């Protein structure tokens, strides 16, 4: 792939007590690439992407995001990088005391408060249109279904126009139709916003639709990498089992 590298993770280690979760893991993400990460539950996939944005502090390693070494940033520099890296949480993590409009307005109000000319209504409308939920603008999170919550959470991520999006199990807990729609949406977002993404998933349909490459994680490192077709037809039964 000749496209620019937007993220480079090298030799990342993380332990909790005596439990070694990440054992020198590394990855490279290119501009416009959708990289899937697959692995058994509890293997440390979410820990990896949380370490990338320093929601969890890694023990050692290197995380280069858009040319900045994230692990050496001070809090102001880290906030600047975080604005460029969207994160979609498993449960959506919508602010339940705020309406959909306020949820979307919140990151702009907090991060771009100096820009008085910013048309926030236009940005909110654009983000909600991208995820197909323009009608829900005045609803509260408690009035939304699981799929709608994920779409709104994605719209909230998009409002800051991120260059990279980290999806933490975007289709978990959704029915097959809705999860298919979310997977298609991930592709649409890439086209529309020109983002690169890391998609952690157990949903092989999502992996097939939304990713260009898949890495399989096992015992704190990536065991194998390839496209969906390559990995699903590999001779190794253990790898093939993920795709059944």
């Amino acid at each position, binding site marked *: 792939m000749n496209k620019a590298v937007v993220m480079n993770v090298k030799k990342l280690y993380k332990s909790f007590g005596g439990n070694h979760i990440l054992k020198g893991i590394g990855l490279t993400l290119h501009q416009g690439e959708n990289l899937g990460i697959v692995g058994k539950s509890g293997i440390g996939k979410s820990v990896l992407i949380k370490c990338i*944005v320093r*929601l969890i502090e890694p023990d050692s390693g290197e995380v280069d995001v858009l040319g900045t070494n994230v692990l050496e940033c001070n809090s102001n520099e*880290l*906030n*600047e990088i*975080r*604005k460029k*890296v*969207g*994160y979609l*949480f*498993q*449960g959506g*993590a*919508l*602010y*339940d005391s705020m309406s959909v409009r306020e949820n979307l307005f*919140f*990151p702009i*109000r*907090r*991060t771009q*408060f100096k820009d008085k000319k910013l048309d926030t209504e236009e940005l909110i409308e654009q983000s909600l249109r991208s995820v197909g939920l323009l009608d829900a603008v005045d609803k509260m999170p408690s009035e939304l279904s699981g799929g709608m919550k994920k779409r709104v*959470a994605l719209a*909230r*991520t998009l409002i*800051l126009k991120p260059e990279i999006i980290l999806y933490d199990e975007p289709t978990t807990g959704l029915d097959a139709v809705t999860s298919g729609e979310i997977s298609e949406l991930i592709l649409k977002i890439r086209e529309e916003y020109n983002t690169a993404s890391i998609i952690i998933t157990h949903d092989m349909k999502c992996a097939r639709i939304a990713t260009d490459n898949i890495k399989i994680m096992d015992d704190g490192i990536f065991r194998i990498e390839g496209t969906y077709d390559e990995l699903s037809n590999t001779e190794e039964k253990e790898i093939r089992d993920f795709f059944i």
Partner: protein
Amino acid sequence: MAKINVSVAKLRFKGKLKVKEETRNFYNGIFIDLGELVLFTGKVIKQMFQPPLEFREFIKHGFLLGNKSLALVSVTGFIMGLVLTMQMNPVLTDFGAQTLLPGVIAVSMVRELGPVITGLICAGKISSGIAAEIAAMTVTEQIDAMEVSGTRPLSFVVASRVMATTLVVPILVIFADAFSLFGAFLAVNIFEDTSVELFVNRSFSLMGFVDLFPSTLKTVFFGFFIGLIGSYKGYTAGRGTESVGKAANLAVVEASLTIFVIDLIFVLITSIL
């Protein structure tokens, strides 16, 4: 038989070691917790002055917290004033010092009982509420979502609440003091006919600057720590749903204890000065 005795002794020895280790961990835990609270306090104070300032959140929380606690604090103050007067009246009458009753009640309520009792009520009601609310946000990853979008949740979620409690608790103490004097006035009138003017004159005759200033200043600290400890416990709550209850519970215990410690420090300083 001898082998069994040796095994029992070994088990007892291991048991003692475990207890020692647990005790050591407990005390280490307290110091680690204290250290983290100090760091957290520093961060929160820094966030209070960093733009964008959340004035609307501050007013919203101030109004909500104050409004919700006002009735409870007022009723408690009223009952305290009433009860204290009824209990002190016979004692002072025996010494022929009945005219001092309003002044004694006013000084004891304004200097000590009003602030401490209101502080304890607020520790139970406000601190636990803040801890539970923020812990629920932590559990549902809302705090992480704010953190990861660079929106500085410490400023929006914590600093606004801490500033609100710092303002609201002293106001609540003033209400509690006022209602306690009203309760005392009613109680005094059970024993003898006293006009409002005379009661007020007698109440404030024994009170000076040294009674008012330190007691008001300490309520500012009560408010600050009630908000801070509630927020800290919520912010550092674990990931399970049980951590919400645990955070609320710990917030009440630690905020109540902190109120007594602050009170003690102020009493010591005042007595030295």
